[in-house]
């Protein structure tokens, strides 16, 4: 298993390849570059359909297969944790279906053929995605989810969604549920694995919290207390104080500097950025630093004792990052973004 994952990790596309992909002149040429890589299904599907979203869906399907395959191969204690990780895809798929329902029913928008891009592969629970898209009410969606852990969450949030005319409370609740499950599953692991899982989930929670704070600030203009109420406990590096300070003040980089200087000196150059006047810019900077921290933690895991859950987590994180990059580039190519803009978001 270890060797298998390490082989897969060694096949993760290098930065140079991503740069070449960004540099290619058209979407068709970018996609063609993937033909000789593990992303060949993207090329195959695109060649067949000309539809980059279909290719993305195929990629996601393959990724889920890998998670499920790993579940089958792992020992009992680790399997539970990986199962929870796999549920991420299920929750994402459910969120996508509910978003379509919301667009069609609440906003009265045409959702056209968007249902075709849903990941319909059953993961751990059987979810009637078409039923959800066509349900009359969110309570109806809850009924369709009966027998899954998501039914209660959807019913509970139904009133808030109607009140706020936004799905955000529901999406937040689903994410909180997922992370709570992850933390819980992590606690069931053996001590060495538990420590590794805590660190990585911790960085992920940090990233998630900072990502939300940016959204709260940008789109919802929530006050600090309201915003912090929605964040998740269990972060590794970003304390509530740091979040409060960063969210509220126009300049508050002391704590982050101290953290990076002490624990991750490799990242100190990231703090030399002068463009930190607005707190949203600061949050974005913290988000970037956290991404780098995650990469560093993964690197540490790969260099450490090989027979831990670290290798599995490293693979999942690196693979998800790789898929995100590739799909961002391809979508950007689809919209004819210039190279510099793509590089900025990568």
């Amino acid at each position: 298993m270890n060797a298998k994952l390490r082989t897969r990790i060694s096949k993760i596309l290098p930065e140079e390849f991503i740069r070449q992909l960004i540099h290619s002149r058209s979407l068709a040429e970018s996609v063609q570059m993937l033909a000789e890589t593990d992303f060949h299904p993207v090329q195959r599907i695109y060649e067949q359909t000309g539809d980059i979203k279909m290719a993305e869906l195929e990629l996601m399907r393959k990724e889920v297969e890998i998670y499920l395959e790993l579940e089958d191969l792992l020992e009992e204690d680790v399997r539970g944790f990986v199962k929870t990780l796999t549920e991420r895809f299920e929750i994402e798929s459910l969120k996508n279906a509910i978003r379509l329902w919301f667009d069609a029913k609440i906003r009265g928008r045409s959702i056209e053929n968007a249902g075709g891009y849903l990941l319909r592969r059953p993961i751990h629970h059987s979810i009637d995605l078409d039923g959800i898209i066509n349900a009359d009410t969110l309570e109806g969606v809850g009924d369709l989810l009966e027998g899954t852990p998501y039914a209660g969450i959807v019913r509970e949030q139904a009133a808030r969604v109607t009140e706020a005319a936004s799905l955000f409370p529901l999406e937040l609740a689903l994410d909180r549920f997922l992370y709570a499950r992850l933390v819980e599953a992590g606690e069931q692991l053996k001590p060495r694995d538990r420590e590794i899982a805590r660190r990585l989930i911790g960085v992920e929670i940090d990233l998630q919290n900072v990502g939300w704070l940016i959204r709260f600030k940008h789109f919802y203009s929530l006050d600090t207390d309201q915003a912090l109420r929605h964040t998740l406990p269990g972060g590794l590096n970003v304390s509530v104080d740091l979040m409060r300070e960063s969210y509220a003040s126009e300049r508050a980089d002391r704590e982050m500097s101290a953290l990076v200087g002490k624990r991750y000196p490799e990242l100190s150059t990231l703090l030399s950025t002068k463009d930190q006047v607005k707190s949203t810019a600061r949050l974005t900077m913290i988000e970037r630093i956290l991404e780098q921290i995650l990469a560093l933690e993964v690197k540490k895991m790969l260099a450490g004792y090989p027979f831990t859950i670290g290798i599995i987590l490293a693979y999942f994180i690196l693979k998800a990052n790789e898929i995100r990059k590739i799909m961002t580039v391809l979508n950007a190519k689809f919209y004819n973004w210039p190279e510099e803009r793509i590089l900025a978001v990568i």
Partner: protein
Amino acid sequence: MIFTEPMQQVVAVVLDHDTDAVTKELLRLGLLHFVRITDVDRDIGPQVEKVTPHVAEAMITEIRRRIEGFFAMVDDRPPSGADLKVEDLQAVDLEETTKILDTLAASVQTIRDRQSACQQEILRLEDIERQLQMFGNLSEVVEARSQYSYLSIQTGSIRKVLVESFEQALGEIPNVKIELGTQDNQALLLLITMKRDEGLTNRILDKFGWTDVHLPREIVGKKDQVQENLRGKLELLKDEQEELKSKVESLIREKRPALEKMWTNLRLNELYARVQSFFSKTSRTVIFSGWLPSGKKPVLAEAIRRVTDGRCYLEWHQPREAEQPASVPVQMSNPKFLSPFQMLVTNYSIPEYGTIDPTPLVAVAFLIMFGLMFGDAGHGAVLLVLGLLGSLLYKGARSGVRNLLHLIAYCGGAAVVAGVLFGSYFGMQWFAPLWFDYHGVVSGHGGGGLVTDVYGILVITIYFGIAVIALGLVLNWINCVVKGRWLHLIFEKGGLIGGWIYAAGVYTARYFVSHDYRQLPGSGFLVYLIGIPVLVLTLKPVLEYSLHKPRKPFTLLMPVDFLMEWIVEILEIFSGYLANTLSFMRVAGLGIAHVSLMIAFFSIAGMLSGPSGGYTIGSYLVLIAGNVLVILLEGLSAGIQSLRLNYYEFFSKYFSGSGRAYAPVTLKKKKE
């Protein structure tokens, strides 16, 4: 063949106006492994500047790869490098080439966009199909229409004569239209469309005088017909997508000659620019340097003199004069039939320049090991035939694939020879063994030959291991002498002292075994055999310290360091050689496993035999499956283990894989 090919370095100075002719000649010859003149003579740096090719190599490479991307879209390979001729080299217009490729890319993208539009239609129809599947029949669908946010289901009538044009008018809208019957001159229709198209649909309905009709359940309830209609449309769309896909292929195939021409010229220009990227110049001269096999020196010298009309200066250097000996490139010159084994060597690493090229020895050792582990003439013949057939079928394949297929054929041949020696043919004894009956020995009734039990097989493999290790040691001594590494020759683990201890160990072990595991050689003998070399080894850390430059200051703790180093060295020699030798027992292990598996399959086949005791069809199926399994499984295992023994037990004794492969800039290379 036994040592790497001798190389020589040339430093050439030619006149500035001969640069083009010299570049082309160097390309045509394809002999020079270039090095920068500033790396050859560091002092020359300030006096010369780099030659800047007219077009940057990186830009040409990028466009060449772009063309290869188009070839790959139709699974075509770029033109073979063998077709490149320096006479075809023309000035390259990157801007014009880019424009042509941009136009082609835009055409491809347009077709892909049309494919995408098709895909959108497919998804819409599939959406309709999925929605319909949620209900038992269509009347339910019609009744439940309010539940649908994006399906519009209508029943109504239009004049019969207008049905065809109505269908055409609906063409662009994703729809399912079913004719449910006729009434007078009116056609009764069920129409399913997307709600988002309602405006357009209603305009068409108005135009054709559509009248809503409420139809009874039994008329509407024909879901199969709707599904068939949907399936028909989906198939048409998928065909259209397939057609568009082939359009991309036809487009590129149509442009292939022009693309090939561009590719060839780009490749030539790329190589031309690469050669010149190693040139340095003064105000009127150009200087370059590179390595080539010594035997090719006259060819290169004559060619440069010819194209420059003798206006050149050539200086030749021997590898020992090189500032960095490790920088001398290595050319392994083995006969073609040994190329599969050369591949095994280079996969491990490139041997250091001037040392032994182990390819021929690997060929012998690898095949003996494989034969001993896979000793069955029938199974070997299958591998031989597969290897030869594969080589014929994949003549144009990459050299790696061809070498692998040849290797399979060689292994098959080795197994045939071993099988004849062991009298094994698909696990049966069709002819008497020439050496000993492997099957008989493993199954416990094979007496009479040179080997009577499995211990005998183990002993053979241990002797074989000793021979391989001893050969490795001798090769190491030769390498040390050639490279003048005298300290290594004497004190290294694989040096003379190490060899002495190993020989003593082998003698002692043999003596002990031959005396029923009860008696060791006399103590005086042991002192000479093992004690003396062990004591001599104490000198190693001391000598290394004395000869090391710059020498570290002596401290009082150093003798302790020396002592520790000596102890570790001795432990390493004793345990290392013991493990290395015993490691060869895997050869016997795999051979025994091979025979045991065949015995097991014959036993299973016997269990399935008929009342008369003869084999049934089931027995034969078991035997066929068993043979296939053994060939695949054991063939792979024996191959891997042979490789492992060569890499770790043989190479570790003498092979210094620190060489750099000789890589001249040549037109012969296929693709990078």
